[in-house]
């Protein structure tokens, strides 16, 4: 105990180790070639995670990182949009019209269960334009590959602020017009059984 009567603790492993060990953490990545981040639209094609109705799991994003590949940035910033009542079906009359599904990788590399989420880092389209949720605090200026500037890191920690229940989808977008800048995107998140809460 500390001098003020507080319990003194020391972290044993890295954050999220226990969840990763139990196979609850997944890595959702674009292809290494990356993609251009675009404005929210029914034409979609934003990196998107969809927790389908009936999955039995909540999705809790942990972090998002971006790596520059090529092209010119347009001034603006990156944001999250969402699609509520997204159901679980894909089709003309459904909220999600088309979806290119890519299986995420369990962070228990080589082991763990399969993901209950749907992840699309490519073609996806929607009946309605996704709804604005929040800025990620990442501002892009007109830097280009040939600009002599310092290296930079594009990373966002969610800190447990977002829980995505079944029937909702989360989209990574730019808030400005489509840019030619191409980024790899990696989202790391947990899939936890829906808990009973008071």
């Amino acid at each position, binding site marked *: 105990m500390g001098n003020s009567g507080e319990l003194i603790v*020391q972290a044993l*492993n890295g954050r999220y180790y226990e969840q990763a060990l139990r196979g609850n953490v997944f890595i959702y990545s674009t292809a290494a070639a990356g993609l251009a981040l675009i404005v929210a639209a029914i034409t979609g094609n934003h990196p998107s995670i969809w927790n389908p109705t009936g999955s039995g799991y909540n999705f*809790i994003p942990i972090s998002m990182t971006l790596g520059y590949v090529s092209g010119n940035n347009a*001034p603006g910033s990156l*944001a999250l949009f969402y699609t509520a009542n997204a159901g679980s079906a894909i089709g003309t009359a459904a909220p999600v019209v088309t979806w290119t599904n890519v299986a995420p990788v369990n962070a228990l590399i080589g082991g763990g269960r399969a993901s209950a989420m749907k992840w699309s880092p490519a073609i996806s389209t929607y009946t309605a334009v996704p709804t604005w949720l929040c800025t990620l605090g990442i*501002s892009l*200026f007109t830097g280009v590959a040939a600009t002599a500037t310092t290296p930079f890191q594009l990373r966002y920690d969610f800190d447990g602020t977002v829980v995505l229940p079944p029937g909702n989808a989360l989209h990574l977008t730019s808030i400005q017009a489509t840019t030619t800048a191409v980024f790899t995107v990696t989202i790391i998140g947990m899939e936890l059984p829906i808990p009973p809460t008071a």
Partner: protein
Amino acid sequence: MNVTKARAGVPTPHLTGDGTQATARTENSVALLAAERNGSFYEQTVRGNMFCFSTAAAGIVMAAAANTNEFCIWNPAGSGVLFVPSKLNWATVSGAAAIAGALQLYTQVGMASAIGTGAPFSVFTDIAPASFLGKTPKCRFSTTNTTTAAFAAAFGASTGWSVYQGRPGTAMVPVVFSQRLHGVVISPGQTLRICANTAMAWTAVISLWGIEVPYPNVN
């Protein structure tokens, strides 16, 4: 709870399987070994107490503190909750060359719960905060509001975020501003406002994540 105390150089026992009696361990300085299972704010989020207060995607022009049209979260008197701001994200949309300045937190006290002539707020156009868990927030949020002069916002704290005369069209590296907030509690009848210390000429989007905690009994 049984705790096995460590001796220097002698590791405490570990690696108990599921379904067995576990013993808590200490490290060599006798601190209890612990692990953060989920993200810092997960428990409040999954209980539906976390809300996201965002400007529209079009953003707002960053102005100096005044009595009108600022990013404002209002915990109205009688709400029964404390508002705990937890995470602040800020990003650019567009604009000309910025005027050098800083992003700051301001507060107002005695803001009551009514809107109208003679009240602290004569105008307050609500924007619904977002939550995926279905609870209705007690705090109110607006970027279109007018405060009676007697209740001018007071400087509360710097966010640590400053800009020089850069502009969104400048060829420079991307910038990340995302910050956890600690040690701020907004009681009923108070507001939290986010504005610049001078008119910055930039249009920005702001998202603030905050927790509504039922008003506790405190000594």
